[in-house]
């Protein structure tokens, strides 16, 4: 019943007309885009007006929901109002949950709203799976990085060890094991470079060859250990009396050789004199191993285009031979710039032997 009774002057026909009109209006409220005006003859029906007002509120709330507006207040009581409020509340909660996910918090799941919840939970599960996979990859890469670092460190260490070993081997290959100075091979390599440099710079150089006088006798009478000691002493003395850029080497047996780069014969001669005096001095303070040396000195002039290192060494060797031949314990200088040999004898160094 919309009214206690239809208008007083109405008969059954008028009542049918009233209900038809009221039902049309209700139908319009449910289907039309805009709420139609209530005809004047029905406006004073309070129950119809109240019902239309409630339907209008439902229309308004549904219109808001369709636009994503969750804030339209629902004053309607009863089941319909409850459903609308429930929908608003559930969507608000879902939005809060989505914001939680956006903040990286994936622990909550939705257990209502049917397919919405199913999709939301599927999404969060997928994100959790992806996140776990990323974390796993991250840990894996971190582990790989650590292993790689260890491997690289081990390789660097191995390379350094190899480098040191190589340097050691090179040193062994170029060093005389007994005396610790350069060996013959090392001397020849360095001396060839030095000759080329002197040629380029148009400077002369000198080569001095020397050996221990009566070394065989020392070995035979005092033993090889003493002989070795003599050789080590001589090597040390030569080194002490040489400049840093002179090339000093044990040439073989008791023979030693020195190359004086960019040095005149006079200066090389003076250096050999100092060496000889040093040997003489140590001879007086080291009575157990008295020894003397003979020295041959030769020069290389840049004008000697065809002269080789071997030629110069041969010259120094000849000078040494002459020093031996002329009495030992002396310096013999081979001056042969113009293929004429001159001899220059030093004064024999004092000897206690």
């Amino acid at each position: 019943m919309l009214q206690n009774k239809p208008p007083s002057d109405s008969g059954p026909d008028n009542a049918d007309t009233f209900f038809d009109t009221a039902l049309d209006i209700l139908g319009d409220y449910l289907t039309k885009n805009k709420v139609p005006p209530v005809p004047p003859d029905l406006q004073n029906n309070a129950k119809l007006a109240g019902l239309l007002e409630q339907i209008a509120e439902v229309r308004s709330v549904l219109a808001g929901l369709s636009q994503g507006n969750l804030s339209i207040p629902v004053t309607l009581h009863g089941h319909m109002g409850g459903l609308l409020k429930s929908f608003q509340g559930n969507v608000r909660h879902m939005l809060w949950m989505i914001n939680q996910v956006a903040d990286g918090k994936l622990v909550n799941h939705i257990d209502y709203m049917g397919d919405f919840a199913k999709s939301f939970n599927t999404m969060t599960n997928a994100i959790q799976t992806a996140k776990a996979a990323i974390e796993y990859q991250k840990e894996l890469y971190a582990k790989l990085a650590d292993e790689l670092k260890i491997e690289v460190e081990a390789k660097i260490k191995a390379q350094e060890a190899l480098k040191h070993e190589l340097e050691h081997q090179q040193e062994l290959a170029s060093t005389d094991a007994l005396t610790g100075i350069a060996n013959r091979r090392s001397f020849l390599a360095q001396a060839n470079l030095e000759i080329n440099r002197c040629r380029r710079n148009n400077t002369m150089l000198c080569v001095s060859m020397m050996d221990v006088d009566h070394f065989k006798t020392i070995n035979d009478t005092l033993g090889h250990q003493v002989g070795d000691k003599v050789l080590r002493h001589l090597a040390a003395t030569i080194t002490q009396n040489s400049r840093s850029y002179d090339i000093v080497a044990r040439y073989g047996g008791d023979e030693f050789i020195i190359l004086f780069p960019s040095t005149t014969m006079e200066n090389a001669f003076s250096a050999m004199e100092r060496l000889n005096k040093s040997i003489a001095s140590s001879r007086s303070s080291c009575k157990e191993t008295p020894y003397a040396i003979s020295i041959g000195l030769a020069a290389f002039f840049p004008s000697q285009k065809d002269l080789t290192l071997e030629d110069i060494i041969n010259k120094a060797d000849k000078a040494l031979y002459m020093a031996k031949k002329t009495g030992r314990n002396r310096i013999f200088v081979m001056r042969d710039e113009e293929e004429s040999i001159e001899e220059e004898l030093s004064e024999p160094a004092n000897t206690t032997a």
Partner: protein
Amino acid sequence: MSEKLYKFSWDLIGDIGARESLGPLVRVEVYRLMQFCFRDILEKHYGAEQADNLFRETGKLAGEHFYKQFLPGEMDFNTFVEKTQTILRDLGVGILRIESANLEEGKLVLTVGEDLDCSGLPEIDHEFCAYDEGFIAGILGSYVKREFLVREIDCWCTGARTCRFSADIV
């Protein structure tokens, strides 16, 4: 006022396991019978407003003990919400959902569905869940370690009456 003889502690709930045959559960109507009869008598003696206040205060005390018993330890807000949702559901208290939460501003809006106190009640023209207001204030206050003012701002009938609460740090 006569001397106070009782101070609640969780121990006073006793050993539920002693109910070997009946177990830990009780019908909702029995719980409501007790609470609504309390309300009737309290309103009769103190009026509706004072009865609400007593229920609210009782709920707050219960919420604080509930927090200590079921939600101890440090945790982030999301974990706290999830744990609270789980325990409230498992114990049959209700279904908690957060509509909005801004802890920096100290403002939350939440709903409790299938509420132990009021789900399925006939619709009435005033808010009814004073005990729940206190209960929620007790739990939130214990977590944030601040005082909360919780008010029921809406309720509706969808077959299962659901309550919406606002919670604001005082």
